[in-house]
């Protein structure tokens, strides 16, 4: 009897302690936010996360803001800002009409610019093999299944390609990188456009789904003959081989800053209501352009209790903040886009 009494007392004390701890944590969490500078919290795109991480210290010393960012993926960012559980969301894919209406008075602002790289795993073959859009679309729709296919050989005449089977890998979760990739495929392949279209997820005809950029990279690196797509910073950081892509002028471009800048020059007029920009597969007159480049967006409610602070932070992000981009392979956004971004930021009111 005394034993079981002790046991119950212990359990009761433990649960009491837990409740007290939660209450303490709740009040403790609430006070510093009032005392020190404003906290700005964001969530979403993992693509833009390295850049946002670079901003945390300078924005702190410039305005005293504590910037918090949770890289849960573009889809999660949209959901979080829609629920107003964060001050801003970040997404690599522009919002759909349904998402705009669910978000109730949100605006989206292009705030960073980079590219998606097509990675591959093929032993004994050099980095930067050549690839073009129509061939890539055929590979992902399962029509080209071997590395020594005539179409791939024609692009890489000097390379001895093995007969290894191709294994395509795509994101199984909703992803802005998938949006950028399928946006590209549908502009270069009419067949892809009618059958699969573009989106943060599509009805993939074949291939293997993996979760997150990390999952895609892991699966490709474990699969001889594998092909996948991840943002270029991720590919470089993890030393993955990626393709040099043929653009519309017939030149082969790598996903570097020059290639991204050239692509961004092709469309500098955001859509009037959504601020959407599509810079995939730019026209011939941009011979340096890397054809799978993309803007990524920040999504903010136009009415926010932290409006003044959000405006300050975002102005800083699209101007001074851009200087932190190049070493992470983010190209600073061009002037005309910056003007539109600033106009949109001014719409945020309390």
């Amino acid at each position, binding site marked *: 009897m005394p034993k079981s009494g002790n046991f119950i007392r212990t359990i009761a004390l433990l649960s009491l302690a837990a409740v007290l701890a939660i209450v303490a944590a709740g009040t403790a969490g609430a006070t510093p936010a009032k005392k020190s500078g404003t906290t700005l919290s964001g969530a979403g795109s993992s693509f833009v996360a390295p850049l946002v991480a670079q901003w945390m210290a300078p924005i702190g010393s410039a305005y005293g803001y504590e910037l918090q960012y949770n890289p849960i993926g573009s889809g999660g960012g*949209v959901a979080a800002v829609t629920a107003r559980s964060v001050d801003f969301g970040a997404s690599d894919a522009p919002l759909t009409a349904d998402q705009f209406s669910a978000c109730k008075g949100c605006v989206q602002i292009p705030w960073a610019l980079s590219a998606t790289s097509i990675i591959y795993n093929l032993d004994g073959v050099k980095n930067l093999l050549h690839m073009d859009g129509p061939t890539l679309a055929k590979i992902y729709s399962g029509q080209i299944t071997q590395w020594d296919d005539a179409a791939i050989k024609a692009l890489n005449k000097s390379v001895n390609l093995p007969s290894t089977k191709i294994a395509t890998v795509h994101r199984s979760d909703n992803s802005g990188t998938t949006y950028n990739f399928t946006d590209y495929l549908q502009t270069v392949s009419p067949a892809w456009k009618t059958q699969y279209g573009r989106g*943060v997820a599509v009805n993939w005809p074949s291939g293997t789904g993996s979760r997150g950029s990390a999952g895609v990279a892991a699966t490709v690196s*474990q699969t001889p003959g594998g092909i996948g797509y991840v943002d270029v910073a991720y590919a470089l950081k993890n030393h993955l081989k990626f393709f040099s892509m043929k653009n519309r002028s017939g030149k082969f471009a790598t996903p570097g800053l020059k290639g991204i800048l050239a692509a961004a020059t092709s469309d500098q007029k955001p859509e009037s209501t959504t601020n959407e920009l599509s810079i995939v597969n730019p026209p011939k007159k941009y011979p340096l352009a890397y054809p799978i480049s993309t803007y990524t967006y920040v999504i903010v409610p136009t009415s926010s209790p932290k409006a003044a602070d959000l405006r300050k932070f975002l102005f800083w992000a699209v101007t001074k903040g851009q200087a932190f981009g190049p070493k992470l392979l983010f190209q600073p956004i061009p002037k005309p886009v910056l003007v539109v971004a600033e106009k949109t930021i001014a719409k945020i009111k309390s």
Partner: protein
Amino acid sequence: MASAELTPDAARRPLAGRRLRVGDLSLQLVAGTAAALATVLVGLIAWKVIDGARPALSHYGLGFVTRIAWNPDSRHELYGAGSFLFGTAVTSLLALLIAAPLALGIALYLTELAPRFLRAPVTALVETLAAIPSVVIGFWGILVLGPALRDHVEPALHSALGFIPLFGTPSQTGSSIFTAIIVLAIMILPIVSSISRELFLGVPRELKEGALALGTTRWEMVRGVVFPYARGGIVAALILGLGRAIGEAIAVTQVIGGGVFIHWNLFDGGDTLGSKIAASYQGATTKLQLGSLIYLALVLLVFSLVINAAAQWIVRRVARRQGTGLNRGGVG
């Protein structure tokens, strides 16, 4: 049995009369509140799921449950649960089929066969397996288990048993229904084995020693005494394991490879209800898609309820037969 020492009247009346029943009252209050909270919570979840699924429920009706489709393209959106329901059933049942004998073997070894100094550390290790987060098991699945199965196990099974459609062309990436099954089997192993171990420990020593004294071998003793005695509990443990396998989402999403098809090749990709929800819930692009995902959750909820009900029915039947089984075991 213990109360036989006192007559029922002598045991109850004096206590009831004299003491203030503060303890009884607070016990009633605490336990009652806990039970009520759990019930309300389940009710709220069910209501919220049905409410969230409404756009898809009214749009598709019951046809959704069996339709094999998942096309998020806004121009021809079409959703259905068919292939995911199939994937859930196949992965969870086969995982249980693999895990059950292993788990019972581990439990038997730890209670009856292992040298005493090994029992505690091995038990602790097996139970640690249950504490590994599923996302970690998933990554191990992509990087280690998947490639190993692809390189060594799948080709061997294919060349030996390739005439059975289940063992078709080995996967190229290592992400497949087969990998998901093995991952799930590993995840439910500690659950089933630790419950079974407790059950086996609960078999009265007199029964076991009696059987051995009658000249049975160890195996005959296990078969005749330990298993029949614990049968109802083992079934319950298996059901718990199955429930875990049906509901697991993250680790499965990481290794199953995806695909909206029904096929019999275990080495090809697929999806389960849980893995599809986990993969697509965040950032659903249309109302219909979000509704359909929650509809998947509803299908999963009903599927688990049905499995649970069936399991309880089995446990009750087994329990009813247990008496006779035990007698036979004791005598034989």
